[in-house]
């Protein structure tokens, strides 16, 4: 049957579509990521622990001077605290403290002695203090520039003489030049501090260095955790929800739909009653009800993120099977009148056997399409639910990322939203193309 499936006209037609093949490739990459995450390559610690200062921009954007200084200052304070507390401790204690300072792959080297470390911290602090004058000067100049431009504005609106205005403008220009000359100076001073920090906690060479750079590649979120890792980790959540929901709902939908169409009578009435009842409840409402229902049980515990997804699965499965059920029911209505079904009856097979062995295999293509559609639906709905705070708990997901980043966006920090959106966009687009191609290839109207 499988062999026949791959030989069939529909599959050949599907494989002829280049877009569909490319999309299948994209989906497999996502699936691979999901598998790798599932195997434990990215742990919850990776996505919650700090990897740097908050809201660090990703690879395209240079961090601002303020952010660099702030980042350095933050690290220095932590380092100084360790230097102070560790001064009188045993070497083991000292080592433990140094290790606690680590930013994932970036650690104080094993061979570095504590004294050496303390000296380096002191000199780094000095280098930081050296930036102080330049910092102050930049700040003053910036303040003055602001004041001047305000004054200029005022003078213009009051109609002051042209000479006064041009004098002020000259002054402004001069200050700008001055500021421009101090800036590189400040930058090079910051570079020095950063170099010292790198000496204390170097970025390792090779693989782990690359991983560290990957962590920072898409910036950090409002808690200083890696956005890239969150985005990747969420691929797993998306697949988990997508697969579980679409598998269960396609199975349920096609089985109930086929049974309803095939047996007719009260089976059909019962299934259609369920369909119309459930389809009149939006899954958001259902979700809210389920959350209340599950409150206080093990399914409502952010400490057990896996179990906390059960209400989400339930709500999606309860609503998603309906679409499949309707389509399969229609198809089986058609198939059951075909002669091969009558022929099977005339050979003597029982009804249930015919349904399972002869009819359901003929709805396989519908299941494929619905699986794909269900997958997309589940991913998109997860985002909406999580954004509303009803979905995923205790672990990141694209919806959670977008929800958390909504304040950042107003201050023009877009990395988290962008990452979540693009990751989701890629997967959903690929699945959309695949399901379109499936539909084209298997829909008898298109042959």
């Amino acid at each position, binding site marked *: *049957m499988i062999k*026949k*499936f791959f*030989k069939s*006209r529909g599959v050949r037609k599907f494989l002829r579509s280049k877009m569909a093949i490319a999309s299948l490739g994209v989906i497999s990459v996502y699936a691979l990521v999901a598998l790798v995450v599932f195997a434990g390559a990215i742990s919850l610690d990776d996505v919650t622990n700090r990897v740097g200062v908050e809201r660090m921009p990703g690879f395209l954007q240079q961090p601002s001077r303020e952010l660099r200084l702030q980042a350095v200052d933050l690290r220095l304070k932590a380092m100084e605290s360790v230097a102070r507390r560790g001064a009188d401790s045993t070497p083991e204690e000292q080592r433990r403290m140094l290790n606690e300072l680590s930013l994932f792959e970036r650690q104080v080297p094993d061979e570095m002695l504590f004294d050496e470390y303390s000296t380096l911290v002191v000199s780094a602090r000095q280098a930081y203090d050296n930036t102080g004058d330049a910092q102050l000067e930049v700040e003053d100049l910036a303040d003055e520039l602001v004041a001047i431009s305000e004054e200029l504005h005022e003078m213009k609106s009051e109609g002051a003489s042209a000479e006064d205005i041009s004098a002020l403008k000259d002054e402004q220009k001069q200050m700008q030049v001055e500021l421009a000359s101090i800036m590189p100076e400040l930058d090079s001073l910051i570079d020095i501090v950063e170099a010292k920090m790198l000496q204390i906690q170097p970025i390792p060479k090779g693989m782990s260095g690359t991983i560290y750079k990957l962590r920072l590649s898409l910036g950090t979120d409002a808690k200083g955790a890696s956005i890239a890792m969150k985005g990747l980790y969420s691929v797993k959540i998306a697949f988990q929800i997508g697969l579980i929901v679409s598998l269960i709902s396609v199975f349920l939908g096609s089985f109930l739909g086929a049974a309803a169409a095939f047996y*007719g*009578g009260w089976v059909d009435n019962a299934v259609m009653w369920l369909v119309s009842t459930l389809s009149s409840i939006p899954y958001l409402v259902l979700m809210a009800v389920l959350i209340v229902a599950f409150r206080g049980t093990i399914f409502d515990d952010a400490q057990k993120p896996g179990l906390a997804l059960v209400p989400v699965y339930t709500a999606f499965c309860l609503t998603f099977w309906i679409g499949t059920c309707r389509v399969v029911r229609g198809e089986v209505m058609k198939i059951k009148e*075909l*002669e*091969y079904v*009558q*022929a*099977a*009856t*005339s*050979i*003597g*097979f*029982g009804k249930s056997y015919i349904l399972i*062995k*002869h009819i359901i*295999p*003929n709805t*396989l293509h519908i299941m494929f399409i619905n699986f794909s559609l269900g997958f997309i639906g589940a991913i998109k709905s997860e985002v909406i639910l999580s954004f509303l705070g009803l979905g995923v708990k205790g672990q990141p997901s694209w919806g959670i990322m977008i929800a958390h980043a909504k304040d950042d966006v107003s201050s023009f920090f877009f990395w988290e939203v962008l990452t979540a959106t693009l990751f989701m966009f890629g997967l959903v687009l690929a699945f959309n193309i695949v399901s379109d191609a499936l539909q084209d290839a298997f829909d008898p109207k298109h042959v």
Partner: protein
Amino acid sequence: MTDTKTTTRQEPILKIRNLTTRFRTDRGIVTAIDDVSFDVYPGETLGIVGESGCGKTVTSKSIMRLLPEHITIIDEKSSMEFEGINLATTSNGQMRKVRGNRIAMIFQEPMTSLNPVFTVGWQIDEALKYHTKLSRSQRRERSIEMLRLVEIPNPEQRINEYPHQLSGGMRQRVMIAMALCCEPDVLIADEPTTALDVTIQAQILDLMNGLKEKLDTAIILITHDLGVVAQVCDRVQVMYAGRVIESASVYDLFHTPRHPYTKALLESIPKAAKTRVKSARLPAIEGIVPSLWELPKGCRFQDRCSIATDHCIELEPDLITDENNRSVRCHTPITVNNAPVRENA
């Protein structure tokens, strides 16, 4: 031809009496076939002919109980006796044992009568698995043997092919192989050749003729084509608007039709060119079959009958069987004045 057989005939294997099938529809209950009675004897071929819509398929599906259960009513007075059980009233479980094993059926549309997702071999094997206790390899052997019997070239290879890889004629052969693989006593063939082109049609009919002799299966051959009947049937019964209107041996029916409808039907088949003036048009039967919803009070053929009388409009004739074992449902049947001398077959 068959008459000699008729007199020395054994007991009928299938005895249909007063079969009346009604459907529940949106417009109410409609009687699709009314009071149909006939016998099928072992090893003979019974033809059922009639225009489309006259109830041939409903008759055959009633026997097999293939009609949709919740809309079909088989009248209580109907009985279909097969080996001591009444197919009209027997349990579904009993019916499943009869189907395929004892009475098999093949259908009109070869394009859809095989399941597209399974190989030909799988489908024959499935039937064998259900009805026999043969082992896997024995079943495979038997499947190949059956395909060979229905004259499919290279059965060892064909067995692994899917229906879409076969032509219409091939599929019909496979259907026949599937139907016959459990050696049923009765094979119902509902227009088995209608969807095929003429040469293939002749091959399939030849095949069925040959198989009947080899396997000694009784065949009920349903068709709207009297040519087909002449080729393969022993006896024939003509149906019109849900009623049997005439039944006779093929020889008698073709030589001395007694019902005006049968006569008109026979006149409308093309004959060999020399017996007919060139360019003469075939006489078609005027008028249309009455709708099952508006059946006339009297004879159902009255509107199209050239010799209908007031009596025909008032009262529906009964099916009268004469001493020669011919039945006709007509008040004024065409008389057999110079009864043809029967050559012995």
